[in-house]
């Protein structure tokens, strides 16, 4: 059997979990296996309600007072117990920050392989191979898990599957997993999630974005890109390293830890295209990228790949735009 585990995100099924359901349905149909969906921990009964239409053999509910809020200790213990009980061939989740936080614990507890951040699946007969990006997305690799392993844990990168493809027509079958947790199981204490006060800059509504990466080399060169953005009437944004250096404020950051945008034009300047950045902008309608490295992964998703020195191109382009 295949087990998909749903994650709660502020009251709803996490978007990545919906994609995980599609991954699970696809794997189940290719391998001729049955699919179960586990609703566990925080908000579990509401998740079960929301998932009731999904095509699956059954929905499993695992609730306990001690995991009403997310806890790496509690979640890893409960999921390990479920896996030991049900022996699924594959356990599937979205590659969220929560999954990164607790699923390796399950892998270590049960000595099971965890293939994380998968972008696609191919099949050699009944044997699936899972592709993931490596070396800063410059390469990808196909991974096979050891066939002697009873269970393999999988997490899928966002947009590896589309939640539009969820198959509906679920059965009403449901069961409850008897959760056993005691005080010794939970060592760490989690406080409620919170959002830092934002600046009021909402990049998600911007139609044009000029975004700058580590290729800018120095804080002194930031005004050069700001002038380009101004000449185009665009908002300025950046990849993570620029924010880490303190060259632009964090609310300008695009990517998994920043904002996700889909403007008419995303004009990227000196950004290599690491996975964490690309997940925040690959939905852009048009992408122009300037980079001096012809092999920069950003070019794989760009409509226009400008291979050249941004220090020369940006000032001249700004000048032309101002004419």
């Amino acid at each position, binding site marked *: 059997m295949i087990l998909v585990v749903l994650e709660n995100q502020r009251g709803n099924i996490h978007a990545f979990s919906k994609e995980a359901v599609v991954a699970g349905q696809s794997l189940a149909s290719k391998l001729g296996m049955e699919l179960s969906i586990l609703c566990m921990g925080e908000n579990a009964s509401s998740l079960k309600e929301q998932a009731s239409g999904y095509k699956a053999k059954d929905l499993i509910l695992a609730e306990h007072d001690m995991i009403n809020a997310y806890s790496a200790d509690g979640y890893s213990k409960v999921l390990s117990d479920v896996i030991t009980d049900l022996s699924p061939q594959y356990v599937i989740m979205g590659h969220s920050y929560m999954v990164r*936080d607790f699923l390796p614990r399950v892998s*270590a507890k049960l000595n099971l392989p965890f293939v994380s951040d998968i972008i696609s699946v191919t099949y050699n007969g009944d044997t699936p191979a899972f592709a993931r990006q490596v070396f800063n997305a410059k390469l990808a690799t*196909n991974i096979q898990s050891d066939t002697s392993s009873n269970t393999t844990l999988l997490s899928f990168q966002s947009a590896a599957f589309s939640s539009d493809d969820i198959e509906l027509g679920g059965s009403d079958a449901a069961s409850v997993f008897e959760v056993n947790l005691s005080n010794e199981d939970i060592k760490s204490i989690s406080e409620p999630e919170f959002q830092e006060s934002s600046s009021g800059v909402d990049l998600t509504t911007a139609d044009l974005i000029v975004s700058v990466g580590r290729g800018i080399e120095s804080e002194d060169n930031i005004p050069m890109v700001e002038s380009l953005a101004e000449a185009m009437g665009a908002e300025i944004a950046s990849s993570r*390293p620029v924010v880490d250096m303190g060259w632009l404020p964090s609310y300008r950051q695009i990517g998994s830890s920043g904002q996700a945008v889909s403007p008419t034009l995303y004009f990227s300047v000196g950004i290599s295209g690491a996975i964490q950045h690309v997940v925040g902008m690959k939905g852009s309608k048009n992408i122009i990228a300037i980079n001096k490295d012809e092999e920069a*992964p950003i070019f794989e*998703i760009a409509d*226009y790949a*400008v291979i050249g020195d941004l220090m020369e191109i940006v000032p*001249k382009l700004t000048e032309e735009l101002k004419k």
Partner: protein
Amino acid sequence: MKIAVLTKAIPSYESSIRIDSTSKWIDEAVVNFVVNESDSYALEEALQIKEKLDNGSEVVVITMGSEDNTSKVLKDGLAKGADRAIFIKNEDSNTDPLTIAKLFADNLKDENFDLIFSGLQSDDLGSGQTGVLIGEMLGMSTATLGIETDIQESKIKVKRELESGWFQWVTLPFPASVSIQSGINEPRYPSLKGIMGAKRKESKVIDGQSGSQKQNFINLFIPKNEKATEKIEGDVDGIVAKLMDVLKNKLRVVS
């Protein structure tokens, strides 16, 4: 307090990455190895904690791999202020996070670290699992993507980064393994005095034997381009003229 910092040597951003003849690994001969970026932040966080506590705490910088690739990493850590280094020598191209974590856990368990810091992920394999796996193997509490830390009596408070600008504080009793997000601090440069002093610090070498892997690379490949990308290259004036045409006439985003 004893703090371990796990660091990894990875190909620099500028390095050209070529698949080798086995198609299971890269040609390391043409690669320049540097310290994984988020590991530098993990080291800085450990050094700042040691300096703030000012109670004789110890920071140990640890890496694994082949001697050629990793020697710079440990020297850099010692020069920045780590008290000693441990090098787990292992020439295998291990790609399974479980195998890698087990090598660390087996060889570090007797050190009884109060804290293990690691970068949130390595920019080569990028599984982002090692710190958590080691924590579980050694019976420690774990947290990931720490963007702020606060040491309290026999526990550490960690501000975890969540998606899209959300955060969460978690409190972990020692021993704890925490992965550190980039941007948490400003990593220092080694001082000349630090570089000179590094030579006199203890650097222990352990022969690490890897076990079997539960997941394997079948083949590395160059990702296919998902779009019909138009290349624009040549002299600067030509590039700028072409870009103006695209912006004005094709995309019509400027007038």
